């Protein structure tokens, strides 16, 4: 690009650059450090089996986090994702009798429907996202339990192979998560929807006056988040070979938000980092794995998580104006 831009009066200093580097890539360094620590100190860490386990476990969290990243980018948040997973697992069990495809469709539509409800509350009524989705978080799990009041085993063979099968050694779960990650990254970077989403997240009034379809974009954001959470619910069900609406997805909203924020997406909206989100989810997964593998007690686990979260967001923080 060659334009007659005014030349900047100074160049960015090296210190600036280093700081930016840390700010932008801190989470990747974190992942690298944890990998290194594990390779050195955790027995049997360097094995394909182990990496496969970590990848499979992180897949549902990552898929939920992708939707969460969109919601956060629009200056919102979606607390209902965990309940949507529960709803989707209930719907699967309920409709499995009609065939696997119908069950899958029902589960995903259920998630999308919650997304529509969230989106409508946020976009049309103007309820703040955190409260709107809190209401659906409470009600959503209730509905899931009304539909399927108890844990139920899922015996469907195609569900079982979805949960544990693989293609060329890569588990379906991981493939699906990777495909969805690429899709969402593409949407954020290359589509009008992505640009509009960021503008809305950065300045809602300006976006509105610029004629952007604010409501449509917001509804789509929550529909995407709900749908992705439902997909995660399907995958978790397939892996568990059971529908457990009581505990499936509990605290998932917090894990997903953590992954997104640790990955460098600011909660104040206007920016979405998909690569960072992947790294954030992987960081939390590796940390949990490390703590479990070394058999540390729950007190340690919780404190360590707290410390790592703070360190990660501290490294990625936007510096003050001074």
């Amino acid at each position: 690009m060659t334009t007659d831009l005014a030349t900047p009066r100074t160049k960015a200093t090296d210190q600036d650059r280093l700081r930016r580097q840390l700010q932008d890539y801190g989470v990747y360094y974190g992942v690298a450090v944890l990998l290194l620590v594990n390779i050195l100190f955790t027995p049997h860490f360097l094995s394909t089996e182990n990496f496969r386990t970590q990848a499979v476990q992180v897949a549902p969290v990552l898929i939920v986090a992708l939707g969460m990243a969109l919601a956060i980018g629009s200056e919102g948040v979606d607390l209902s994702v965990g309940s949507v997973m529960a709803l989707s697992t209930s719907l699967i069990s309920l409709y499995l009798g009609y065939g696997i495809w119908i069950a899958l469709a029902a589960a995903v539509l259920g998630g999308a429907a919650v997304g529509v409800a969230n989106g409508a509350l946020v976009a049309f009524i103007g309820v703040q996202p955190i409260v709107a989705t809190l209401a659906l978080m409470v009600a959503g799990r209730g509905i899931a339990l009304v539909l399927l009041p108890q844990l139920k085993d899922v015996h469907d063979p195609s569900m079982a192979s979805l949960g544990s099968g693989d293609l060329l050694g890569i588990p379906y779960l991981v493939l699906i998560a990777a495909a969805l990650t690429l899709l969402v990254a593409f949407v954020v970077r290359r589509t009008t929807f992505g640009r509009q989403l960021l503008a809305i997240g950065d300045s809602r009034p300006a976006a509105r006056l610029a004629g952007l379809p604010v409501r449509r974009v917001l509804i789509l954001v929550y529909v995407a988040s709900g749908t992705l959470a439902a997909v995660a619910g399907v995958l978790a069900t397939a892996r568990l070979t059971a529908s457990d609406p009581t505990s499936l997805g509990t605290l998932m909203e917090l894990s997903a938000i953590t992954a997104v924020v640790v990955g460098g997406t600011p909660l104040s909206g206007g920016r979405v980092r998909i690569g960072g989100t992947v790294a954030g989810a992987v960081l939390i997964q590796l940390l949990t794995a490390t703590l479990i593998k070394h058999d540390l007690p729950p007190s340690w686990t919780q404190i360590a998580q707290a410390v790592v979260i703070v360190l990660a967001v501290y490294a990625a923080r936007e510096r003050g104006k001074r």
Partner: protein
Amino acid sequence: MLSAKSVSKTFPGVRALDEVDFTARAGEVHALIGENGAGKSTLIKVLTGVYTPDAGELTYDGAPVRFTTPLDAQHAGISTIYQEVNLVPLMSVARNLFLGREPRGRLGLIDFARMHRDATEALRDLGVTVDVRRPLRELGVGAQQMVALARAASVDARVVVMDEPTSSLEPREVQTLFGVIRTLRERGIAVIYVSHRLDELYEICDRVTVLRDGKVVHTGALADLDRLRLVALMLGREIETVQKEGLTSFTGTHDTETEPVLTATNLTVRHHLHDVSITIRPGEVVGLGGLLGSGRSETAKAIAGALPADSGSVTVAGERVRTGSTPAAIRAGISLLPEDRKAEGIVPGLSVRENIALAALPRLSRFGLVDEKRIDDLVDTFIRRLRIKASSPHQKVGELSGGNQQKVLLARWLAMHPKVLLLDEPTRGIDIGAKAEVQALIDELAEQGLGVLLISSDTEELIEGSDRVVVLKDGGTVAELTGPEVTEQNLLRAIATTELA
């Protein structure tokens, strides 16, 4: 009284202040001028503790000082009105006025009765009568500015800093303000005054410091400097080139067609407008005159669908436009450059490039996918054509100076190829150079057949720029001046007579 020695301040990619020396003396009104982005606001923020300088030092009363927060500066007796109205909209007028120095009674609790009395009085002194218990946001921009002024003036300050205090004031309020400034000067207070309006400077200021690109290019008595030299210093150009450009850059009247491109009929918005009708013909610049709060901005917003109208209709080129919908208005070819650039115009975190392309995105994409190449071309064109100063198209708009932000917004709308352009205070807070460019641009657009609605508190600009002026008062149309009737006197008379009615 307050001075800076060799002060420098660098932002990522920009050296906003470069070894600046500056002194404000007791009992003088010191003008600080320069183009957009010259570093005026930055200097003020350094002087008042918002920013800490990278190098150099401040002295106050002869002793070196270091303010680390605005509070430090306030405690030291420096009171400031910052460039953007910086108050808390949800809090009441009185609470805003007295934040941090509320009168306190027993138990250290705030004495509201006294606070309200004092606030009412302080505002009344400035000719503003409002219920001080109402939320500040219910006041117009101008009234808010007066509240900020009252706040600054009611402190026992020894230095008062004003960064473009008049940009949203009417002539009458400007006079009130000057009255206040004169009293301050008589009391031996140092006043630092930033404005792009040269008339004002000559009316009220004693000395002047000119900044260009972060450097001081001149300091001295204002009387020693004539207008042309002043402008030449600011712009860094020869006097002759400046001379040619005149006061405003409007060329006069335009050839207009007879069929209106926009017809707004009987627009009514409860509390804001009643039965406002306006027509704009292609190639015509229609001015909208009136006092603060007369409903000019609301008229523009109602036409652009940004304010839902209770009744009335808008047609563009004969086609009825759905009211209350910005996208519908934009599709019909109406573009609005909003008054509050910071809150409603720019998307600060996005780049210059994304901001320019924002509204036109659907046109710049295929199947919902963005066409980067076409955006680059478009952005390139506009950056060059409007001479937007940015370190790169990828610089965040929030980091640009006000004038350049405004140009980015203009670019955003011009990229839409609108039929009608509604400009609400398009040159507010813009330096002379940029102002001239924007004005010339408005002219050029009209010539190309665009219909323009121009709202401006700068009477001169309104008169010289418009072919026709519609005067509003209290949300209703009260007069319309056409052709030769468009003079400053007629405009003032229209506003004045209606005020008696």
